[in-house]
C-alpha cells in the first residue's frame, strides 16, 4: 500500500464510522474537529497534536539511533519505527509513577514510542545505544532499547523473547492485592507468541476467581526475524487464543493512533473496573526490518503511521504543513545535540563489571571470599 492510498483508506474508514458516543465528546472537546468529515473519534485537537508530536519525536529518535549504528558508533540497533501509533497512546494513557498504585510496563525492544510518551529524553536512549556509563537504563551494559525506568514502573526489557509476559502477571498480582486499580501492561511480538511464556500469561491471568488486572498486548507486524506470520500461525487472529481463556480480546489497526487510543482507553478502563485481564492484538508496520541484523533499511511499501497521521491532520486543517515541518526539524536538532553530548560522556570502566552482581556489590568475586 502506498502512502497515498493509506491516507485515503484512513479517511474512508473514519468517515464510515458515526461513533455516537465519541461524537458527543467531540462536541465538548473540539468543535472544529467534529465539524470535519474525519472526527478523529472525538479526540480533542490538543490531544491529537500531542500524539502527533510524540510520534514524530519517537520516529526521529529511532532514525537517529539507526544513523548512530550505521556510523559505527553503536554495536547493534533494534527498535520500533512503525509502532508509534500504538506505542504513543499506550504511554499517554497509563497511570505513570512508581509502586503498586501505578501501572507497570513490561515492554519489549520496540517500545521507544511508549517511552517517549512517558517522557523519556532522547539523550537517555542515545546513551543506551552508545553504551555510556551515563545510560540510566543499564549503565552501558545492554542493547539498544533495553530500557529500564523504575521511577515509572518500566521493568527492564530483556532479550529473551516473551519472558516479560508472566512477569506482568506477577506485578498485576501485587497491584490487585494493593487495591488501587492499577494494572500491568505487557507488549511483545507475534512470532514470540509461540513461546510457552505467552501461554503461561494467558493461564495465570485468567484463572477463575483469581483474574489479574493485566493488559496483554501483541504487536503483530507479521514477521519473526524472517519467518512470515503464515509460516508459524494456524490461528486466524492471535487474539482468538485469548478468547479461549475467556479473556476479552480484540484486534485493532495499530497504525491508526485514534483507533488505538480509543481501544486502549476502553480496555484499560475495563481492567481497572473489573480487575479482569484484557487482550489487544495490534497490527503494526515493521518499517525498518527486524534490526541491524537484517540491515535496518526502510521498507517503503509498508504503511507509515507517522506520515499517514500527519497527512490526516493536515487534511483536516488541524496541523499546517509548515508547523509539521518545524516539529521534525526541532526533534532532528535535539537528536543531533543529544548524540554529540553522549559522545563526550564517560564509558563504563573495566573494573565496574563487578558492580551490582549482588545488592551492595557484596560477594561478586569469589576470589575475595
Amino acid at each position, binding site marked *: 500500500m502506498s502512502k497515498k492510498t493509506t491516507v485515503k483508506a484512513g479517511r474512508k474508514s473514519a468517515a464510515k464510522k458515526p461513533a455516537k458516543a465519541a461524537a458527543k465528546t467531540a462536541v465538548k472537546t473540539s468543535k472544529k474537529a467534529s465539524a470535519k468529515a474525519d472526527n478523529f473519534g472525538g479526540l480533542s485537537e490538543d490531544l491529537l497534536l500531542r500524539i502527533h508530536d510524540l510520534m514524530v519525536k519517537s520516529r526521529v529518535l529511532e532514525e537517529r539511533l539507526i544513523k548512530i549504528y550505521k556510523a559505527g558508533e553503536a554495536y547493534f540497533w533494534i527498535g520500533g519505527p512503525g509502532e508509534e501509533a500504538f506505542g504513543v497512546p499506550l504511554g499517554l494513557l497509563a497511570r505513570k509513577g512508581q509502586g503498586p498504585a501505578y501501572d507497570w510496563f513490561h515492554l519489549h525492544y520496540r517500545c521507544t514510542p511508549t517511552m517517549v510518551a512517558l517522557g523519556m529524553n532522547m539523550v537517555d536512549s542515545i546513551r543506551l545505544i552508545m553504551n555510556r556509563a551515563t545510560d540510566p537504563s543499564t549503565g552501558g551494559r545492554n542493547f539498544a532499547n533495553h530500557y529500564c525506568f523504575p521511577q515509572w514502573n518500566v521493568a527492564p526489557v530483556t532479550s*529473551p523473547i516473551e519472558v516479560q509476559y508472566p512477569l506482568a502477571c*506477577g506485578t498485576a498480582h501485587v497491584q490487585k492485592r494493593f487495591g488501587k486499580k492499577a494494572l500491568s501492561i505487557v507488549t511483545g511480538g507475534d512470532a514470540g507468541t509461540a513461546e510457552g*511464556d505467552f501461554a503461561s500469561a494467558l*493461564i495465570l491471568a485468567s484463572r477463575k476467581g483469581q483474574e489479574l488486572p493485566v493488559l496483554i498486548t501483541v504487536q503483530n507486524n507479521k514477521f519473526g526475524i524472517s519467518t512470515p506470520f503464515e509460516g508459524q500461525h494456524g490461528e486466524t487472529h492471535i487474539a482468538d487464543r485469548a478468547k479461549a481463556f475467556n479473556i476479552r480480546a480484540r484486534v485493532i489497526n495499530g497504525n491508526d493512533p485514534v483507533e488505538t487510543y480509543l481501544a486502549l482507553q476502553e480496555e484499560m478502563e475495563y481492567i481497572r473496573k473489573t480487575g479482569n485481564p484484557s487482550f489487544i492484538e495490534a497490527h503494526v508496520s515493521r518499517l525498518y526490518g527486524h534490526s541491524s541484523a537484517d540491515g535496518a533499511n526502510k521498507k517503503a511499501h509498508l504503511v507509515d503511521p507517522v506520515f499517514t497521521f500527519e497527512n490526516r491532520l493536515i487534511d483536516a486543517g488541524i496541523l499546517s504543513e509548515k508547523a509539521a515541518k518545524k516539529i521534525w526539524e526541532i526533534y532532528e536538532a535535539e537528536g543531533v545535540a543529544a548524540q554529540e553530548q553522549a559522545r563526550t560522556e564517560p564509558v563504563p570502566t573495566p573494573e565496574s563489571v563487578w558492580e551490582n552482581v549482588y*545488592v551492595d556489590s557484596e560477594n561478586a568475586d569469589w576470589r575475595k*571470599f
Partner: protein
Amino acid sequence: MASVAQAIRMALHYGETNLGVKDIFGQDVGAPLGGVFTATQGLKTAWNSPLDERGIIGMAMGIAMGGDKCVAEIQFADYIFNTIDLLKIAGNTLWCTNGQVQLPMVVMTPVGAGIFGSVYHSHSFDAWASRLPGWKIVMPSNPLDAYGLMLAAIKDPNPVLYLKSKALMRHKGDELIPGEPADEKELKAMIDKPVQNAEGWKPRWPDLEEYIVPIGKGKITHAGEHITVVTYSRMVHLCDEVALKLAGEGISVEVIDLRSIYPYDWQMIKSSIEKTGRVLFVNEDTEVTNFGEHLAYRATQELFYQLMARPRVLAGKNLPGIGLHPNLEKNSVPQLNDIETAIREVVAEVP
C-alpha cells in the same frame, strides 16, 4: 525434634508472620495438600499455581519486582530445568539494570537422590545452580539449618535458591528450633495436618523465634586432624558416619558442612586444609562438571604447597539418570563405602 519438612514449614510461617512474606506458591503448595513433602501445610499465604514451572518463576519475579516478598516452589528440581533462562534473568536483573532493580525472592526445590525416585526424581541441581551468577544458593543438611537458612533467604535482598534434599525431608536433627516444643508428639499435634478428617483443620503454631544461619557460613560437623572432607546436604550425614567409624581406627576426619554453595565459606575450607593438608570434596551431583571441581581447583591454586595429597572430588557418576533399582542408584551416587575408600586413599597418599 522437628523434621526438615516441619522446620521449613515453621520457617515459612515465621516468614509470613514476621518477615513480610505475602505469597508462598507452586504446584500443590496450597490447601488441601500443602506440598508433596508437607512443607507448606497450614500456611496462610500458600496457594496453588498452575502446573507451569516457567509461569511460577516468572510470576515470582513479577511479585518481587512489584515490591512484595514471595517464596516459590518448584515441586522437584528435576523439573526446574525448563526455567533456566528465567533463573538466569532473575540472577542478572540487578546487574543489567546497573543496580536499579532488586529481586528479593526465594525459590525452593527438592533435590537429589536417596528416595529411589528413579530418573526424574533424583536430579541434583547444585552444580547448575552454581552457574547462576546473581543468585545465592543454600543447601541445608538438618532441621535447625533448614529453619535458619530459610529465614536468611527470606531476609536477603538477592534471589536465593533453597535446595532441599528429598531424602532429608523426614530427617530429624538433634537441636531444637528456638520456640519448638521439646516433645516431638506435641509438635506433630500442633502443626501436622491430620491424615484423616482434616477438614477445617488449622495449625497451632509454636511461639517461634528468629534464628538466622548466615548465608555463606559453613559449619564443622566433625572435627579432625588428618583430612578435610567438604560436603553439604544429605552427604554430610554419610561423611559424618564414616568420620565416626574411622576415628575408631585413629584416622581423624574433619567434616565441613558447607551449608551454602554460593557464596561459599572459603575461609573455613582454607584453614581446615592448612591444618590437615588433605582434602576430599563430596557431593552427589554428576562429576562432569561438578561444583566440587571448582573448590578442588581453588584448593590447588591457593594451597598447593600446603597439600600433602592431591585434592579429590567424589561425586555422582556422569550418567544421564539415576535408575530405579537400588543397584543402579547405589552405583550412581556416593555411598558410605565410596566415601570411606576415598578418604582412606587420600590419607594413605604419600607426597
